[in-house]
């Protein structure tokens, strides 16, 4: 008999009573959350339970919600029961000041790099991880770039030295000295017009 979301929910509430909360089914995928201290207990239970058998970690990633007090960072696990073909989503939240979450590497070897990636982008400290260091960004980076307070570079900024690509610059291509001195921005345009 195929496993239904209702059964999973029931098994989880039997085991963890009111610790596992926030049951939802956005687009058919059962989603729930638990306190971050319990993440390994929940993952272990989902893995070992004879009915649930969520033994494949599809995905692990972080999310930043700057407005949620004491729950700024989330770790999202996507788990898959391959026997019954059911997917679930499990979230834990942590405060940004003390972003410690237990590592799932003991359970899933695949979690190793995914947790490193999450650390790299969000600074979530996976307690017990065998090799928690940056993976995609340079080691010298001193901030966590996917957090919402870091904006993407402004496409219109002018302080960068890239006049080769036609955007202003310090070397002053196009503003060369003429007999009459340096052309100002408005003169450059008017010169073109006169020739035409």
């Amino acid at each position, binding site marked *: 008999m195929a496993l239904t979301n209702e059964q999973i929910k029931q098994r989880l509430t039997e085991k963890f009573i009111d610790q596992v909360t926030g049951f939802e089914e*956005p687009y058919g995928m059962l989603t729930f959350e638990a306190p971050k201290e319990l993440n390994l207990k929940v993952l272990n239970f989902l893995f070992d339970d004879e009915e649930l058998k969520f033994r494949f970690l599809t995905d692990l*990633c972080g*999310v930043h919600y700057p407005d949620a007090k004491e729950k700024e960072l989330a770790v999202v696990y996507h788990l898959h029961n391959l026997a019954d073909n059911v997917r679930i989503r499990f979230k834990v939240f942590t405060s940004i000041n003390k972003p410690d979450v237990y590592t799932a590497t003991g359970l899933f070897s*695949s979690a190793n790099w995914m947790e490193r990636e999450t650390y790299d982008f969000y600074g979530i400290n996976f307690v017990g991880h065998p090799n928690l260091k940056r993976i995609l960004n340079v080691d010298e980076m001193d901030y966590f770039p996917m957090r919402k307070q870091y904006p*993407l570079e402004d496409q219109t900024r002018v302080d960068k030295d890239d006049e080769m690509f036609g955007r202003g610059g310090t070397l002053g291509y196009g503003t060369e000295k003429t007999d009459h001195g340096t052309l100002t921005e408005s003169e450059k345009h008017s010169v073109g017009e006169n020739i035409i």
Partner: protein
Amino acid sequence: MSEQHIKLPEGSIEKTTTTLNLGPTHPATHGVMQNILELDGERIVSTEQTIGYIHRAFEKIAEHRPLYQITPLTDRLNYCSSPINNMGWHLTCEKLLGVKTPKRVDYLRVIIMELARISDHLICNSIVGVDSGAYTGFLYVMQYRELIYEIYEEVCGSRLTTNIGRIGGFERNFNDIAFQKLQKFLDEYPRVLKEFENLFTRNRIFMERTMGVGAISADRALNYGFTGPNLRAAGVDYDVRVTSPYSSYEDFQFDIPVGTTGDCYDRFLVRNQEMWQSLSILEQAFKKVQEFKGAEADVYHADVPEYYLPEKKDVYTKMEALIWHFKIIMGEIEMPAGEVYSSVEGGNGELGFYFISDGGRTPYRLHFRRPCFIYYQAYEELTKGSMLSDAIIVMSSLNLIAGEMDA
């Protein structure tokens, strides 16, 4: 000579093993990634992988872009099969927005995706051949990858980074040339694939180079998050096209080939078999597409004016179309709030998109589940104790694509 000239790292005289830097720009890595191998003679003691050399912060960029501008980013993940990434992204958006695509669109998408799968497997398998010393196969099949690229070109205008399709369908209908080229491919390719197989499958040198090399058990493979041909070579019949069908894959008859040992040879065989299955799907899809007659044969997108760009002549003549055109191009369409995970069977495994929308105009968070980022972790386990030359073959037979790994 003073001893200041050569400064050896501490402990390097006493050391009995050799450190070898393979990559990041070594020709045998087939991509920008680094492997630091610790060798005892020619045996590998340990490896350490360094990736991120072409990290382009796609997830961050995606948070600032309207949906249609994210498609070109997905091109650059697994660039050997860009159309699958594009389709995966469109399907994710369609799931979030609740767009239902017509059957003909689904079948056309299946055609494009299976062509992409063939070109992806073709590259991977022929590169395994190159790394074991057989260059011929690689050059021979390149002609047919070229033909696949020509079909892409007829449909979307580009070849490698395709940006193919739109939310709801395709940017234009397939023209006759595309169908003729597809027919040509279906006629000629089986003979070529057979010949390609003859070159390798029972080739003594190839077999001895690949059998038993880089083997992994089904249990370990699952634990490492393997998906796609690499998992199937270990004996697990997990295929997203079958377990959670998308784009009407449930209308097609095909088998999932599986291996037993999970070594390089099995991975090679599984990919070859999948190409045969893809050919069969292509034939079925082509037949289904030809069954649409008259007005039905002109359907190539769903009717979703909020997300699908109107035709240019309508933009010039109709107010409604002009408004939608402007709103779409300026990225002024608000999406429903929600979170969705959607995945497709990519060239090298389950390519997933985890998309959180807060009801704004750009994704709040977009995470790509990139299969080869996840299974490259197993590289150390796969190569420990084997020879240096095996390490190269394992790397190519895993089908590691730097663009996908680094996102």
